[in-house]
């Protein structure tokens, strides 16, 4: 029983991480049809923002030493600022471009950020100590669950709740949903395109900062490639969940996290190294069965 409970919690916490990532990607995709390949590098940037640039092995933490009620808002702000800056400087010019062009532009942006970080900080991972007490396990019905996992799940649910309320109840949320469904029509009806897109980027940036904080606290290191894995899965989850559907992306994130954990727990020992192949295989199967995504909104289905 405890083993099953452990697996459920592992699946939930890994799924939450992927869900947060998927949310960041889906929001921008919804309003701009842009897959932001730089998202993983935004995550890494937010983590490195806590350190003073240096190529030494030991990190000189400057912002990381602030108390949590200052550090968290600061990092969220940095994430939002970076994201909005990339919108203003880079993505704004690509509004009407081919999706492939936008994708490559976002990849190039991520490339630039990653190599900038590499130049400033070198590739050696730096240690960051953030709230080590969160690593201690909490006992729950016999299963030992690290406090951090619980915090991750709680944060994800909270973020989702806030976002759902925002999207469904506020005017800005309404504008965002309209823009996601049909951008041109929404503009004609008076939605301010630039404001909505900027807002989507800001929220996405804050989500990136949140993921960065969770990853840094969990692993205790700051490493250039930190957000890459989450970004990849988030991208896949956005598509499987159904393009244009934000709750779909979140659900798909949870599903992929669960699949990964379940495969790890149930595959025989020699097959375990092929876990990722199984996960990708499952993704392909899902796409074959439901190409428009698991939770595609009705507008996504082609009428012809």
């Amino acid at each position, binding site marked *: 029983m405890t083993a099953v409970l452990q697996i459920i919690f592992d699946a939930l916490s890994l799924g939450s991480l992927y869900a947060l990532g998927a949310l960041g990607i889906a929001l921008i995709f919804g309003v701009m049809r842009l897959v932001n390949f730089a998202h993983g590098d935004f995550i890494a940037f937010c983590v490195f923002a806590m350190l003073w640039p240096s190529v030494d092995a030991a990190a000189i933490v400057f912002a990381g030493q602030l108390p949590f009620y200052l550090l968290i808002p600061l990092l969220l702000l940095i994430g939002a600022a970076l994201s909005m800056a990339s919108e203003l400087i*880079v993505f704004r010019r690509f509004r009407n471009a081919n999706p492939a*062009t936008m994708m*490559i532009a976002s990849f190039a942006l991520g490339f630039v950020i990653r190599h900038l970080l590499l130049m400033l900080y070198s590739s050696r991972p730096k240690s960051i100590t953030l709230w080590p007490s969160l690593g201690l396990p909490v006992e729950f019905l016999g299963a030992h669950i690290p406090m951090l996992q619980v915090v991750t799940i709680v944060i994800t649910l909270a973020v989702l709740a806030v976002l759902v309320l925002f999207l469904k109840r506020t005017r800005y949320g309404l504008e965002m949903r309209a823009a996601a469904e049909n951008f041109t029509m929404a503009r004609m009806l008076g939605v301010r395109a630039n404001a909505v897109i900027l807002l989507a980027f800001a929220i996405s940036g804050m989500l990136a900062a949140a993921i960065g904080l969770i990853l840094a606290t969990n692993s205790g290191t700051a490493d250039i490639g930190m957000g890459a894995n989450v970004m990849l899965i988030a*991208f896949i989850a956005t598509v499987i969940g159904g393009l244009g559907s934000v709750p779909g992306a979140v659900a798909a994130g949870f599903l992929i996290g669960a699949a990964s954990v379940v495969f790890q727990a149930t595959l025989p020992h020699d097959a375990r190294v092929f876990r990722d192949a199984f996960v990708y295989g499952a993704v*392909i199967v899902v796409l*074959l069965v439901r190409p428009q995504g698991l939770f595609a909104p009705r507008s996504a289905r082609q009428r012809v």
Partner: protein
Amino acid sequence: MTMSQRRSIIRQTITTPIILMLALLAIAALTYQFGSRPLNRTAVEMFINIMVVVGLYVFVGNSGLLSFGHISFMCLGAYMTAWLTIPPVMKSITLKGLPAWLLHTQLPMWAATPISGAFAALFALIVGRVIMRLSGIAASIATFGLLGVVNNVYSNWDSVTGGQGSIVGIPPTMTIWTGWLGAAFAIVIAYLYSISRSGLALRATRDEAVAASASGIDMVRERLIAFVVSAFIIGLAGAAYAHFLSIVNPGAFYLRTTFIALSMLVVGGMYSLSGAVTGVVVLSVLIELFRNLEKGVSLGGLSIALPNGVQEIAIGIITIAILMYLPTGLTRNREFSVGGWLLQRRFARPAQTALKELN
């Protein structure tokens, strides 16, 4: 298509591949004559990249679908070449899981390369039957999944592929002339495909999917053909790469290579063969320029050098800048030809229509 129609198409468009091949020949000759050994290697690398990106164009440019998985064909081609050309003595120690007939085979480059291409094409045929039913971004993600699966399997099937560690022993038989030959061959295949009936049909589905299928074009079949042809070309590129470096490992055929290849294609012009070649040449030249600036250039008595690591940042910024001002790429989706720029627009540029397939 009647013979006279076909001949007129060839007459109108044949200048494109000829111009491309001659331009590359000029680059090869100049590099061979005046370039240092490292520069010659850079040129060979560029030719191999041309093979990859032209192969990518055959699928992406003609079908309009972005594929993230094509580099897995490069992996397949490279490893097949490795299996066929490494001396049996070395293979029996490190790759014990290979079947006996493969362990004892050793073929020269000219035999191993087409077999590698065919192997990649066969794999594409099997996988494509499944994936090509998908459309739009679902297909792109499925190809992503393909890349992930191939990479994961090749990285962990130690007895057959050597796992993540590199395997060595492939004869280093790539010279600048074989490089050029490979690139020219890729261009020829891509050209022949694009003027073929299947290529035209596929481009019709790219520009106007609904009307095309209403006209009786079997979209899945045409896409599959493009998928297989592109896999063949990229498989050849993988074989060339193996002979170039003499060492292969799965990490070289994963995300970084995928995105660099896609960048070169999009920067050059996604929907044109000239675009594919131009993108590779321009970016390769820029990369080499910045790398030399990092090494330091002496002007007079002064030596200036960019700090290490600037090259990658500069290339990223330049890519963004090019795409910002020329969103359809450097060639603006047109092909190079001798007089008759206007004629080419019919074949290369996608039409703007009201109903576009949801991407």
